[in-house]
């Protein structure tokens, strides 16, 4: 290196400066998170565009799916119990169950408890509406087992109610016997639409 002339040193210096400049330019060495380099910004907007195009490509399937979901919802919505607020949901369920059981010939229904099962798929997707599943336990006495079937069928098969008996405890008269009073406790799952929920 001692034999290098000033001209060679100058050339070497220029090459080093050029190399640094090119590295800074190409590698974005001075770019920070706050100010991404032009190629990074370009890659970002390209990725966003690709995402948009992918979304549009999938739009056909999405439209079909939404049509199906709307159809299902339009069928389900009239059968849901409605409440203005989540706090009023148990009361609405109580009233509705008494009404349905009364239709089946069951009077004096005792409500043993309700549970708003918010943790099990409660859907609160918009401020104005949500669907909450509610479980209610009711008890009543009937003179024979046929009324038990009628009561359960009234809940499970009601065309204007979306509910299902998921548990039952029947004591007293046997299923194969008609004598005596039968004490029935039913556990019923249903869903309440809060705030209307649209249709």
């Amino acid at each position, binding site marked *: 290196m001692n034999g290098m002339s000033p001209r060679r040193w100058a050339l070497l210096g220029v090459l080093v400066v050029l190399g640094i400049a090119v590295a800074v330019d190409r590698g974005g060495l001075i770019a920070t998170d706050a100010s991404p380099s*032009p190629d990074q910004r*370009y890659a970002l907007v390209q990725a966003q565009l690709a995402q948009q195009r992918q979304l549009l490509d999938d739009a056909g399937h999405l439209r079909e799916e939404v049509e199906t979901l709307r159809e299902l919802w339009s069928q389900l919505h009239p059968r849901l119990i409605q409440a203005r607020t989540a706090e009023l949901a148990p009361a609405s369920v109580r009233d509705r169950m008494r009404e349905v059981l009364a239709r089946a010939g069951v009077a004096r229904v005792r409500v043993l408890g309700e549970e708003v099962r918010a943790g099990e798929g409660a859907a609160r997707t918009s401020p104005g509406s949500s669907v909450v599943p509610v479980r209610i336990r009711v008890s009543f006495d009937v003179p024979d087992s046929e009324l038990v*079937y009628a009561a*359960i069928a009234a809940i499970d098969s009601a065309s204007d109610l*979306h509910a299902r*008996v998921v*548990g039952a405890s029947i004591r007293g008269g*046997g299923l194969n016997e008609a004598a005596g009073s039968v004490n029935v406790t039913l556990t019923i799952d249903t869903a309440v639409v809060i705030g209307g929920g649209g249709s």
Partner: protein
Amino acid sequence: MAIASVTTRVMVFAGSGFAVIDVRRGIRGWAAREVCSVPEASDARGVDAARDAVRRSGRADRSMAVADASSVHARPMAMTSRVFRDARGGLRSDLEELLPIDGAGAVIGYVDRDVPDVEGDGSGGGYLLAIDGATKQRIDRVASDVLGKHCDRIVAPHQAAVCLRDCVVCELGVLGDQQDTLVRGGVLAELRRDSDGEAPALTFPNRINDTLRPEVSRLAICAAALDRFGSQATEPLVGAWTPGWKRALPAVAAAGLCVAIMVGAMALRGQRYANAIDRTLTTQESLRQEVESVERLEAEAIQLRERLGAARLSGPGHAGSGLVGVFDAVRRALPRDAFLESVTVDDAGVRLRGIALNAREVLGELEASEEFESAREVERPQPVGDGSQREVFDVRVAIRPVPEGAQR
């Protein structure tokens, strides 16, 4: 000014003649081309022919003359050429005291010499060089006749030797040829006579002829190279060397051009990206309404999925039959003589308590039923205790799971 190539037209005077040499400095080095040579400058036809030859050879970037070695007077001085520049006026006025020439019209120059520090005082030194007024006028006249103008610079051949650093000088004098060693212009015959063979040779020609043609060309190249390599160590008899900044101008211009190209390329690259980003954003903007519509659709799908999921009911029972179906299944599976006291249905299955003639038969029937997955005793069968031989049974059966999709 050409960056890649500079042509210097050098008039080399030797004896009574002269030669015109075009010295071209290009990327590949120095090259000399003889334009013309005139053995006798007083020959008018020779000068006319030389003028024609010069005209035909085209333009040169600059011109210079190398005086005949025999017309140059030299005197060693204890100063450098840098000091000479400041003292030039004084030396010029005292010239007749320093050199044995007529001072009227004479011109002076200087050349540093790089001599061993014999005195040990670190002092530098050089040679004061001079040509008298008559020689200067002769050079100017010939230059005007041949080139159409005076030469930009006039140098002594001793100065041209600077370009070769240490070299052997062959001075062809009227008293016979003399061969000396020159160290940066200093004739060191007395000091370096024994190193003749090691240094390159430079001949000061004393006439223009075919034999000396290579020496003339070599001297012309050395003289032309002075502006580049000898400007620090010499001061020409007439004219001045190109200032350093001016010589560096082409390199600076080239470097500036490179930087401009590089910066321009960077800016261009940035601009290309900016344009591409703008185009992409425009495309995004054109898709925005459609995308927003699809995004709304997607949000609706998510909302509906969540609502339907939250409203989904499940529980025990066979497909579509619910709990009534479970009871029917129990009733079908139980023997006719069995009497149920209690039925409890929950997620775990159905617990049945009752009385039958044979509790084991109840369990067997339930196990055999296709409606149930399994059956087990919760408590061992106990006799009723009323003397009727009937038993109390307490069994639990697992309901066969509802197939996926059958729940509502």
